[in-house]
C-alpha cells in the first residue's frame, strides 16, 4: 500500500468511526434489558426471557456471578435504569430490597395467579423471596450443595457415604494420594469460601448469629467446626485456597477428586462424556449433619425500570413456566412443585433423589442483607487460619469483632 492510499484509508476509517461514535438516538420502543449471572440453567432462562412475549425482546447480558453483582450494585445504587430485569438469589434479594432497589410484585402475583398457575410454587420457595413481608422475584430454580463422592472408589474400599464428619475424614484419608484428592475443598474468597464455611458452621457449630445478629460463630463449637475444616484440608487438593466451583468441577470430571461439597447444578455435567472422564461413577448424598447451603435463583424487576411492569412480570412468568422448567431440569432443580415432584424426572436424572433430600436437610444463608459483606471479613480470617497465619480461635474472634463493628455501623 503506498503512502497516499494508506492515508486515505486511515482518513476514511477515522471518519467512519467518528460517524459511528455519535450517541445512539433513543428509539421510541426501547427494548428491555436484563443482567444475569451465567451458568447453563440461567443461560437457558435468559433465552426463554428474551423470547417469552413476542414483540418484546429482552437484551440479556450474562456475566460471571461476581461481576454481575458488582454491576448490579453499581447501576442500582445510582438509581440507573441500565437494567430492567435482574437475576437475584435470596441473599442478594434481601440486600437489594432493603435498599429499595426492587419493585414489590405482590399485586402482579395476585393478578396473574390463575393465568400462570402461580399457586404451583411451594410457599417455602416464595418465602425466601420475601423481604419485610413483600414478594420481590419470580423463582426459576432451587439450587443447593450436596456431597459428591466416587461410587466406584467407595465400593472398592467398602465405604458408605459418611454420616459423621469423622467418617468423612477417614474416607478422605483413605482415598487420598498425590493423584487423587481425598476431599475437594474450595476456599476462594468470598463466594466459594463462604459456602464451604457455612456448612461447617451450621452442621457442627451453632450457626453464624445469635439473637439480634450478635456473632456467635467464634464460640467453642464454631472454633471446633473450623478446626474440622482445617483437618480435612490435609487431604484437599493443592491450592484449595484459590479454588472455586470451576476448579472443583474439573477435578471431579478428570477423576482427581474423591469427595466434596458441590452444587446440584453441576451434577448433571458429571455424566456428560464430552466433559467428564468419570461419567456414571459419581454419586451424591446429603453431607454429614446436613445444613449445607441452599439457595433460590430467580429474576426480579428493578425499581428504576421505566418499562411496563405488567409486561415484565408476564415475561418472567412465561419464561419460568412448567414446560421450560421441565426442559432444563437436567441442569437445575425446578422451583415449581408440579415439576419438582414429577416421578419421571426423578428416574431420568440420577442426582434428583439426593438433591431433594439435600433441599430438606439444607440451610439458607442467614436472613441478613449484609451477610455477604460480613463474609468478606469472615472468609479472610478463616483463610488466614487455614494458612497458619493465625490460630482458628484468634481468626474467628477477629472476624466476630469486625462483623460486630460493621453491623453496628449499619444500624443493628
Amino acid at each position, binding site marked *: 500500500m503506498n503512502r497516499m492510499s494508506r492515508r486515505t484509508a486511515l482518513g476514511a476509517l477515522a471518519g467512519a468511526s467518528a460517524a459511528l461514535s455519535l450517541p445512539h438516538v433513543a428509539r421510541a420502543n426501547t427494548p428491555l434489558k436484563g443482567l444475569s449471572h451465567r451458568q447453563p440453567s440461567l443461560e437457558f432462562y435468559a433465552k426463554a426471557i428474551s423470547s417469552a412475549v413476542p414483540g418484546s425482546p429482552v437484551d440479556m447480558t450474562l456475566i460471571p456471578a461476581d461481576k454481575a453483582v*458488582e454491576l448490579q*450494585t453499581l447501576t442500582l*445504587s445510582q438509581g440507573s435504569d441500565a437494567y430492567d430485569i435482574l437475576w437475584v438469589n435470596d441473599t442478594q434479594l434481601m*440486600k437489594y430490597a*432493603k*435498599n429499595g*432497589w426492587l419493585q414489590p410484585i405482590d399485586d402482579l402475583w395476585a393478578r396473574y395467579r390463575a393465568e400462570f398457575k402461580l399457586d404451583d410454587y411451594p410457599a417455602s420457595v416464595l418465602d425466601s423471596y420475601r423481604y419485610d413481608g413483600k414478594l420481590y422475584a419470580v423463582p426459576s430454580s432451587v439450587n443447593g450443595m450436596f456431597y459428591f463422592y466416587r461410587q466406584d472408589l467407595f465400593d472398592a474400599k467398602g465405604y458408605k457415604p459418611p454420616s459423621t464428619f469423622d467418617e468423612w475424614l477417614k474416607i478422605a484419608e483413605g482415598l487420598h494420594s*498425590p*493423584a487423587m*484428592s481425598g476431599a475437594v475443598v474450595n*476456599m*476462594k*474468597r*468470598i463466594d466459594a469460601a463462604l459456602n464451604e464455611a457455612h456448612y461447617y458452621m451450621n452442621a457442627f457449630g451453632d450457626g453464624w448469629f445469635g439473637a439480634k445478629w450478635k456473632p456467635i460463630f467464634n464460640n467453642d463449637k464454631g472454633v471446633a467446626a473450623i478446626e474440622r475444616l482445617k483437618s480435612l484440608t490435609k487431604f484437599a*487438593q*493443592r*491450592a*484449595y*485456597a*484459590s479454588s472455586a466451583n470451576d*476448579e472443583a468441577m*474439573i*477435578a471431579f470430571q*478428570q477423576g*482427581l477428586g474423591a469427595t466434596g461439597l458441590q452444587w446440584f447444578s453441576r451434577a448433571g455435567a458429571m455424566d456428560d462424556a464430552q466433559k467428564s472422564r468419570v461419567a456414571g461413577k459419581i454419586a451424591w448424598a446429603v453431607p454429614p449433619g446436613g445444613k449445607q447451603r441452599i439457595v433460590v435463583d430467580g429474576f426480579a424487576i428493578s425499581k428504576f425500570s421505566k418499562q411496563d411492569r405488567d409486561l415484565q412480570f408476564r415475561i418472567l412468568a412465561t419464561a419460568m413456566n412448567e414446560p421450560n422448567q421441565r426442559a432444563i431440569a437436567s441442569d437445575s432443580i425446578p422451583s415449581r412443585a408440579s415439576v419438582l415432584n414429577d416421578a419421571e424426572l426423578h428416574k431420568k436424572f440420577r442426582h434428583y433423589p439426593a438433591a431433594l433430600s439435600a433441599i430438606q436437610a439444607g440451610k439458607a444463608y442467614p436472613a441478613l442483607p449484609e451477610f*455477604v*459483606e460480613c463474609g*468478606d471479613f469472615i472468609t*479472610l480470617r478463616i*483463610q*488466614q487460619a*487455614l*494458612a*497458619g*497465619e493465625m490460630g482458628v480461635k484468634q481468626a474467628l474472634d477477629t472476624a466476630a469483632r469486625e462483623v460486630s463493628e*460493621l453491623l453496628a*455501623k*449499619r444500624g443493628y
Partner: protein
Amino acid sequence: MNTHRGLVWFLAPSLLVLLAMLVYPLGYALYLSLFDFYLPSNAPKFIGVGNYLALLGEARFWSAVYNTFVIVMASVALEFCLGLALAVGLYKLRFGAHGLMVVLFVPHIITPVVAALFLRWIFVGQWGLIDATFWPLGIFTPDWLGDPIWAKVTVVLADAWKATPFMMLVLYAGLQSLDQSLIEAATVDGANGRQLLFRVVLPLMRPIILFVVSIRIMDAFRFFDTIYVLTGGGPGTATETLTLYTYSVGFSRLEVGKASALGVVTLLIVLGLISAFVSFIYRRERGRF
C-alpha cells in the same frame, strides 16, 4: 524569539479532555475519601481524615503495603533483568532479530483478563500444565498457588511474563540509539563485555531506564486482574496487595469512602517512589526529566 507563539494553545485539547473526564472522577474520589460512605445508603457522613487514620491503624493495610512492595519490586527487577538480557541478545544478533522480537512481544498484547486465565491453566494444581506434565514423570513441582511463598513467586512470574516484552522493546530501542563511537572507544581501551555493559552502556541508558522502570512501577502498583484470578489474594493474605484490598473494601463491602482513601494513599506512595527515583537518576541535571 516568537517561533513558538501560540504554542500554549496546543495544550488545550488534551487538557480539556483530561479536565472533562478525569478531574471530576479524581476530585470525587478525593472528596469521598473524607466521608464514611456506604454506597447503598446514599448518605455520606463527613469524617475528615478518619478513613486515613483507620487505615494507618490496620494490620491488614500494612500487610497489603508490604505485599505490594515485595511483589512490585521483585517483578520490576525481574522484568528489568530479563528485558535487558533479551534486548542485549537481540541487539547482538545479526539475523532474525526483528522476527524474534515480534514473537517475543506476543504475551504483552494479550488482553489482561484472558492472560490471567492462560496463566491459571499453567499454574493450577494437579491439572495445570506444569503439574500435569511433571507429576506423571514422578517429579513433584512446588505448590505454585497454595504455598504462601510460592504464591508470591508465581504472581511475580505472571507479571514478568506479561511485562517483560514491554521492557525488552523499549530497552532495545535504547540500545539502538546509543552513540556507537563511545562503545567503540571503550572497546579500543580494552573493556571486556561485562565492563562495557556496566560501565558504559547502562550509564548511557539512564533516561530510558528511568522511563520504563517508572512506568512499570506505576502499572505494577495497579496490578489486579492476574492476582485476582490466580490466587485471589491468598493463601491467607500472602498475595493481598493494595489493589486487592481496595477491591475488597470498595466492591465487596461497598465502603466507597474508605476505598477512595486507599486509592489516594496508593497514589501518594507511587508518587513518592517515582519522585525519589527521578531525583536519584537526575540528581545532577535537576528538572530535566
